[in-house]
């Protein structure tokens, strides 16, 4: 597959040869991968979850050690013993699960690890860099209070501030709005003009087509194609990536909306900082419909969801579910009434990573009588049956029922969460970012599950920053901006462009 000589030549800024990575638990992530990167090139690295994209780039960034294989940078063989070594050679990586320190300020996160002399006018330089790239972040805020999207900007800024030659971006657009994505792409092109190289890891075909000069496609630890953009098209890439023809996009059947299940009137919720995050939101969700809430992250969606699910105090307003006032009821009560919750962060909230598949399959329904025996004992036999039925019904791949869910892939973890929540037979599912960071097949699967749920006459309150998802799934769409709804519209009245305007707070 490698089309260069065996020693690295100057043609490539980076040359990785025959990289094999086997994890200590025996998982084979990379089975002999070659990868090249030219100076001033934007290189798309495409593949489904678990294809090995991230592993390959972590090896390039010095975070992982390859089991075997060689890396050449500017023609010289290099061995990285730590990320620092790669960083010294100008290779920096922005992770998907951001590696920021929550209790530190943005400024501290950016300057962490820099030598003293670079600190002298660091603040000034960061400000310059921010205006150069358009990535604006509040420097003295603690990172833990920032919304996900802003955190990612910090992460990118952090790397750029280190003046890297090679910037690896791992699924960078996952949490960005259209405008932000556009900004990011502009910035990437700027970087290219400055002679820097960018590796752009993604599973989104359109994006890679839009921005990359050259595209390498990985599947199951092998390179299955390396295509210049001129020769690439969506179908070809999709076929390479998935290994078969693409599944057609899920289509939404029309259903008739029924009774008003959830009524929210003038809801006010505080943020962690004690400021109003939700400022007087009103909405209704009817059975048989999906109400989508779009919006740039950090506009109060998180607090809204937490307010509705009993995880955060509702300060003012009214929440009525099937005719009953449910303000500030504890989560366990809400579950009993028929509300299910797919939380936005599965690893932090939806699952307990060290618990087994079985154990996680009953998280939040652990008190259900169907698993309880004499004296509040848990009857593991019945739990296992339940877990097994989820696994088979929802097509989840897991090593075994008794292996911790941390060993499951992200897609399977999320499938497990969704499966569990649907299996509760609720009337309403509140789903926050249900497909974030998932590959195509997992995304399609979960979307079809939600649509199926709706078809059965149940309701979904969908919170997502993915406009495509909002438009594909919702019957009606509300756009949230600075804690308020900009407007609630039927999906038929909306286009992506129109939605984009509303995200910026512009109503028509």
């Amino acid at each position: 597959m490698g089309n260069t000589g065996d020693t690295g030549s100057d043609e490539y800024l980076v040359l990785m040869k025959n990289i094999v990575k086997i994890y200590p638990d025996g998982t084979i992530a990379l089975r002999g991968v070659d990868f090249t990167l030219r100076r001033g090139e934007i290189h798309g690295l495409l593949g489904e979850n678990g294809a090995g994209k991230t592993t390959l780039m972590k090896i390039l960034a010095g975070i992982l050690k390859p089991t075997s294989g060689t890396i050449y940078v500017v023609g010289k063989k290099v061995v990285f013993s730590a990320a620092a070594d790669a960083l010294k050679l100008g290779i920096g990586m922005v992770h998907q699960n951001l590696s920021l320190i929550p209790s530190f300020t943005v400024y501290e996160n950016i300057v962490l690890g820099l030598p003293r002399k670079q600190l002298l006018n660091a603040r000034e330089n960061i400000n310059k860099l921010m205006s150069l790239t358009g990535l604006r972040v509040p420097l003295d805020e603690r990172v833990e209070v920032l919304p996900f999207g802003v955190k990612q900007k910090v992460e990118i800024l952090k790397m750029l501030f280190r003046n890297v030659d090679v910037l690896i971006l791992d699924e960078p657009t996952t949490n960005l709005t259209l405008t932000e994505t556009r900004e990011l792409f502009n910035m990437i092109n700027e970087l290219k003009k400055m002679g820097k190289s960018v590796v752009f890891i993604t599973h989104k075909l359109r994006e890679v087509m839009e921005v990359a000069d050259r595209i390498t496609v990985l599947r199951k630890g092998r390179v299955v194609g390396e295509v210049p953009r001129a020769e690439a098209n969506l179908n070809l890439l999709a076929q390479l990536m998935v290994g078969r023809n693409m599944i057609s996009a899920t289509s939404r059947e029309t259903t008739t909306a029924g009774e008003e299940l959830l009524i929210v009137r003038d809801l006010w919720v505080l943020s962690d900082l004690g400021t109003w995050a939700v400022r007087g939101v009103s909405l209704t969700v009817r059975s048989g419909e999906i109400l989508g809430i779009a919006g740039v992250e950090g506009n109060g969606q998180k607090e809204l969801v937490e307010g509705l699910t009993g995880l955060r105090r509702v300060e003012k307003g009214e929440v009525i579910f099937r005719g009953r006032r449910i303000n500030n009821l504890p989560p366990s009560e809400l579950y009993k009434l028929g509300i299910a919750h797919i939380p936005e962060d599965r690893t932090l909230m939806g699952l307990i990573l060290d618990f087994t598949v079985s154990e996680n399959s009953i998280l939040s329904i652990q008190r259900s009588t169907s698993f309880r025996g004499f004296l509040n004992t848990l009857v593991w036999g019945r739990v296992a049956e339940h877990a097994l039925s989820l696994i088979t019904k929802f097509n989840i791949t897991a090593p075994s029922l008794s292996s911790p869910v941390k060993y499951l892939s992200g897609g399977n973890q999320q499938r497990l969460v969704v499966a569990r929540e649907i299996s509760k037979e609720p009337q309403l599912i509140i789903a926050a970012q249900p497909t974030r960071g998932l590959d195509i097949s997992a995304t399609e699967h979960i979307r079809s599950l939600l649509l199926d749920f709706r078809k059965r006459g149940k309701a979904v309150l969908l919170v997502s920053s993915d406009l495509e998802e909002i438009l594909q799934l919702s019957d009606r769409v509300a756009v949230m901006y600075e804690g308020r709804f900009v407007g609630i519209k039927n999906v038929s009245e909306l286009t992506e462009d129109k939605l984009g305007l509303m995200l910026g707070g512009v109503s028509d």
Partner: protein
Amino acid sequence: MSYVLSTIINLLVSTSYAMTPLTLTAVGEITSERAGVVNIGLEGMISVSALVSVAVATQTLNPWLGLLAGVCAGALIGFIHGIISAYGKGAQIISGVGINIFALGFVPYMIIALWGVAGYKQVPEAGRIPRIAGLVSPIFIFCVLIAIATHYILFRTSLGLKIRALGEEPQAADTLGVHVERLQLIATVYGGALAGLAGAFMSLDWLGTITKEIAAGRGFISLALVVFSNWKPSLALLGGALFGSSWALTEWLKVLPGVKGVVPVTIINTLPYIVTLGTVAGVIGRARPPRKSGVPYLRE
């Protein structure tokens, strides 16, 4: 000098001595925990360093060499603990417990092996740390300075930023080129060195002797002080002063005639602990430990 004044001065001096080993040890441990390594072997490190410092001071009749040796001994144990914790990714608590047990054997064994007596050794006058104005220990002054300096380093310098990053999210620091293990080791060695200084202070300065259980629980009090201070060296200084003064006051109260008739001695003895508990409950409240402190940093 009036009785009241002299008593107050005496109490202040007693406090300055009682707080020094606690504060030094706590400041060291704060640094180490900020870097993600918990060391509950403080008790053992104090004792072993006290022993080593006496051994060297007795031999050389030079207190400063003895002091240095004590610091080195603490640093060495910190180094071993650091190797096990940072590089070996070992269980930090077990290692710390082991250090304490080791010291329980090592110190009395070496006292016998070195001096042929069991249990204690006086430091010759020439091996004692000289006092300032006959009252104040130079190490007390140093202790105050080091607490402030450590606070400054941890919260105002890039080195401190790196160290604190290790306790919060070592992976983030790692990708930014911070040498996680090396820095953790350095922080642990620093923690050990300060515990070593505390030990040397106890034997060469405060008490002028080494006994086999010289730490007498101070390592654990220091551990509590780390939490009390919310992992901030400046607060550890205050906490050390609070505990030290109530401890000294307790010993004074017990001596005063009349007091024992009212409250049994055993109950008076709880005073420093109740004062600390009350302060932490009433004033300090919520403390947030470094998130990844005590958790070995494993790369993928």
